[in-house]
């Protein structure tokens, strides 16, 4: 059975249709990258996976069950910013995941439970290369280090899937390269299922095993809100370069401007 599947999934706010006719199924271990012009519903889609937005029509199933309508430990998330808690150190930020689950009343562990939480957290922190900054607060870390911390924190819960909303959008190109290496390694080592929104088509091709392009297929100039976006291209990515045919198709499709923006 597939991990996540959607059938005629639709999302609208009043008469404003954001997403329509989404059909897909995703297997465990896939790395799906989501691209598309700004405001075409990528983030709304991610919020539906998270459970902070309800779906309007159709079905969205996680492990065969309707996806819960609030965030939960089965779906980890890393946002572009504000992903970590400013009042906790690096260690505290990662430990809190285990503490919340072992100490229901206080949300804080003591004694042996605390030592166990520290050990587990340190393992996660070492994986993302922050072992030297255990007792620093997020404001003392660079943007890249903060995102590493956010990833370590999200992976503490061993989520069924990891949702990344432009996680590297605010980082320098050099740092971004390092982060690509990190996320690719973690994805392989821990067999994660990842959904990542990005504005960078190269990033989408480099990291993903599957690329989704969000765009509108129908457009009514009299009522621009009448039709929503859908997944116009759903392509498997081999580790080769994208085929010339695909680039051609992108250029001829309604995605012309977007493609030019990112490829040029």
């Amino acid at each position, binding site marked *: 059975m597939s991990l996540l599947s959607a059938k005629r999934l639709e999302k609208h706010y009043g008469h404003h249709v954001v997403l329509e006719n989404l059909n897909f199924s995703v297997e465990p271990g896939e790395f799906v990258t989501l691209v598309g012009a700004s405001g075409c519903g990528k983030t709304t889609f991610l919020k539906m996976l*998270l459970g*902070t937005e309800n779906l309007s029509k159709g079905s969205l199933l996680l492990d065969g069950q309707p996806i819960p309508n*609030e*965030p*939960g*430990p089965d*779906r*980890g*998330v890393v*946002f572009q*910013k*504000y*992903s*970590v*808690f*400013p*009042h*906790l150190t690096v260690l505290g930020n990662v430990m*809190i*995941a285990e*503490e*919340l*689950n072992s100490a*229901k*009343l*206080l*949300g*804080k562990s003591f004694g042996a439970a605390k030592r166990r939480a520290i050990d587990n957290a340190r393992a996660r922190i070492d994986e993302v290369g922050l072992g030297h900054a255990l007792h620093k*607060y*997020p*404001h*003392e870390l660079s943007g890249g280090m903060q995102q590493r911390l956010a990833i370590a*924190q*999200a992976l*503490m*819960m061993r*989520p069924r899937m990891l949702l990344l909303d432009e996680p590297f959008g605010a980082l320098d190109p050099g740092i971004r390269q390092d982060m690509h290496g990190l996320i690719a390694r973690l994805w392989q080592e821990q067999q994660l299922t990842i959904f990542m929104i990005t504005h960078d088509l190269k990033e989408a091709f480099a990291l993903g095993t599957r690329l989704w392009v969000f765009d509108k297929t129908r457009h009514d100039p009299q009522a621009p809100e009448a039709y929503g976006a859908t997944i116009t291209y759903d392509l498997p990515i081999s580790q080769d370069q994208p085929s010339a045919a695909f680039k051609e198709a992108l250029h001829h499709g309604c995605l012309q401007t977007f493609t030019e923006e990112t490829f040029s």
Partner: protein
Amino acid sequence: MKRLINLTPPRGGRWLLGFVPFLLLGMLYLSLSNARLAENPNDRLLPTPATMAQSFHHLATAENVRTGQIVLWTDTFASLERLLIGIGISALIGLVVGILNGGIPLIRAKLSPLVTVASLIPPMAILPILFIAFGTGEASKIALIVIGVTPFLIRDLQGHALRLPDEQLIKAQTLGASSWQVLLRVLLPQLTPRLLNATRLALGSAWLFLIAAEAIAAQEGLGYRIFLVRRYLSMDVILPYVAWITLLAFLLDQLLAWVSRLAFPWYHAGEGDKS
């Protein structure tokens, strides 16, 4: 020539520059005082510093013949006790209600309008009600401080809780936090330094309410003393008392600031170099 906003005073001179206005005010007072005393040596309105020091020393050391108490310390302890109990109760209520209002929409919908309206009632206007309800003892003075300060604290904390990025609340939930745990581990630690900050700002009003309540009905207290000696035009007592109250207020304010910086270094990270 640099723009005015880019000109900074030299490091060493900063302290001195801050001192200049005080010096000027002091000199102004001295010259006015001298002028009045030259005309009439028994003038009571602008006493010399020596007279004030003498009166203050007397109040701070001499035991009252009847009660055996030293006036200044009795007044100070009485006032500080009322102020600290009042502020303590306000802070506690403010924190609890602020967190609940800020974190739980169902509670906010019920309480928020009430808090907004309550914060607009002028506390001094209901002081008579407090005297009627609690008598003229300690309870009514503490109640005045609590009623005057708490709504402000609640509104400040609730606003701050609502300004916390949604991402943090979502993140906590994806780590498995329950509602209670979100309040306890995300909102509480982030609102506590904010509470200290808001309490610092509220201290001014708290002193106002305290002195007003003491002026109307009390047996001892800093505000009571000032209003008592006003009948005798004793500026030599009033002025040192005002300076003493200012010093106490300043020390309390700095104490809260120091605790906040020490306990919540991350909260003060965004603050630049304060000159």
